[in-house]
């Protein structure tokens, strides 16, 4: 085993950024994700790897710094929590429109508005369905453990550069604040100028020296040109749907009822599955790891064999809409969740399952 530590989810985001060769972080403090920026400040990576860490004057500034830095083909990231991500929405849409790779981390808290600082999953719609304006998609990764917080930083960058698209880690106050065992990976050097030239030289703004200039923009005043851009984006999103769906299943082989849950809610639901199985009920759990692309095909397949799905989310019912689209009326799909910063218990989920689907 490598370097094993006990760390908070937020701390490992910072550690992973340094170790995977991130070039720059721009952010602004907000509970419950402030440890990302704090850990970077304590670790001083600018002395170690040359990584830039900058506390911006606001979230709006952070995302626009990210926009500028991303257009140079560097590996750059930001993090915030729900209200801060709302402030970034315009910039995120611009990054998607300009097809720039970058990584965003949202450690969600309860909303709407300034809301609470407690954990929530109510930014599913914002993250997966828009948030900013226009027909765009983010690559959305939903970690359910501190180890995944670590692993998804590198994976997020990998997918962002593969598709020239922003990737986002959709976490929450539970995963950000909890400590678990985490195995840290090897240090990877930051990309050299030659490597950036090779990876992103066809589009990045690297100084034009003897070639046509590259322009990073989301603006295209000719509607036919803009439609063409959109067609390219859509083709890219379809390719993600075909190639990048990730999910995990627990006890689904013989399941009659399936819980669908992501992130910390999936951890709680694992306990619900244990409770249900101990009472002889055939219950399984499907955990989407990518929320976009959503694991529609496997849910569609399972809909042919099970009696119903319960989408369990710390919100008033958001992902349940995607589960319903996948199931397409074949079997009942219900929602359960506490929200506004309240975390549901495994027992509450079990009671909801019995009441809403099994019929007791």
């Amino acid at each position: 085993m490598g370097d094993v530590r006990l760390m908070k989810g937020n701390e490992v985001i910072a550690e992973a950024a340094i170790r995977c060769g991130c070039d720059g972080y721009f952010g602004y403090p907000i509970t419950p994700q402030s440890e990302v920026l704090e850990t970077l400040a304590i670790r001083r990576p600018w002395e170690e790897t040359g990584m830039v860490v900058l506390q911006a004057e606001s979230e709006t500034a952070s995302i626009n710094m990210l926009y500028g830095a991303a257009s140079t083909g560097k590996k750059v990231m930001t993090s915030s929590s729900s209200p801060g991500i709302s402030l970034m929405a315009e910039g995120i849409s611009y990054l998607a429109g300009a097809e720039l790779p970058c990584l965003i981390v949202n450690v969600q808290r309860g909303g709407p508005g300034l809301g609470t600082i407690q954990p929530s999953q109510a930014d599913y719609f914002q993250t997966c369905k828009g948030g900013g304006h226009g027909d765009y998609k983010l690559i959305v990764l939903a970690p359910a453990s501190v180890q995944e917080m670590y692993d998804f930083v590198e994976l997020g960058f990998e997918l962002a550069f593969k598709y020239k698209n922003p990737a986002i880690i959709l976490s929450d106050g539970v995963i950000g604040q909890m400590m678990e065992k985490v195995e840290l990976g090897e240090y990877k050097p930051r990309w050299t100028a030659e490597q950036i030239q090779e990876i992103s030289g066809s589009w990045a703004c690297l100084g034009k020296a003897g070639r046509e200039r590259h322009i990073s923009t989301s603006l295209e005043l000719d509607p036919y040109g803009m439609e063409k851009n959109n067609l390219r984006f859509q083709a890219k999103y379809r390719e993600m749907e075909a190639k990048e769906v990730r999910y995990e299943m627990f006890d689904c082989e013989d399941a009659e009822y399936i819980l669908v849950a992501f992130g910390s809610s999936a951890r709680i639901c694992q306990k619900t599955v244990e409770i249900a199985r101990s009472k002889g009920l055939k219950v399984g759990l499907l955990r989407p790891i990518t929320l976009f692309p959503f694991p529609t095909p496997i849910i569609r397949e399972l809909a042919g064999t099970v009696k119903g799905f319960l989408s369990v989310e710390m919100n008033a019912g958001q992902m349940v809409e995607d589960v319903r689209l996948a199931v397409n009326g074949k079997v009942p799909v219900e929602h359960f969740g506490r929200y506004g910063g309240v975390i549901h218990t495994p027992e509450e989920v079990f009671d909801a399952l019995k009441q809403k689907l099994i019929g007791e």
Partner: protein
Amino acid sequence: MTEEIIIAGFGGQGVLSMGKILAYSGIMQNKEVSWFPSYGPEMRGGTANVTVILSDTRISSPVLHHYDTAIILNQQSLDKFEKSVKPGGILLYDPNGIVHEPARKDIKIYKIEGTRLAAESGNPKTFNMIVLGAYLKLKPVIELDSIEKGLKKSLPERHHKSIPGNIEAIRVGQENVESILVL
């Protein structure tokens, strides 16, 4: 083996660090561990609590509402968590400042005079280690050797000189835990 613990008291009593030392020590014994703190407004104004899980198998929910053991260090936490101990589970508390004693008859109740013993030892900072010692006497889930390794891992090096004092405090706790209700 899975042990689900809540540690609750005032901010500043070392609740979160006691949990962290327990979790780090668990790692030293190759256990799966999780540590989930209260980080809400309450930690800014008074009470703090942390859920620690130690297990031989993969941990499902890090957030719990029923516990095998509750370690309680003030009245507010006793009021809040006494009902959350699983039947047959353990409630360990420091009587300092407690005006309403625990009333349940279906759990094992123990007392540790952590505040008094820490004050008498002349090193009040070791309070949380005395309480941890009392817990380890009741539930020897972690060996003292692993606690020492856990302390080394979780404390910055400049504090390593305090490790022997902390280990001694654990022994004091182990020797002074009193049984209030045995099932």
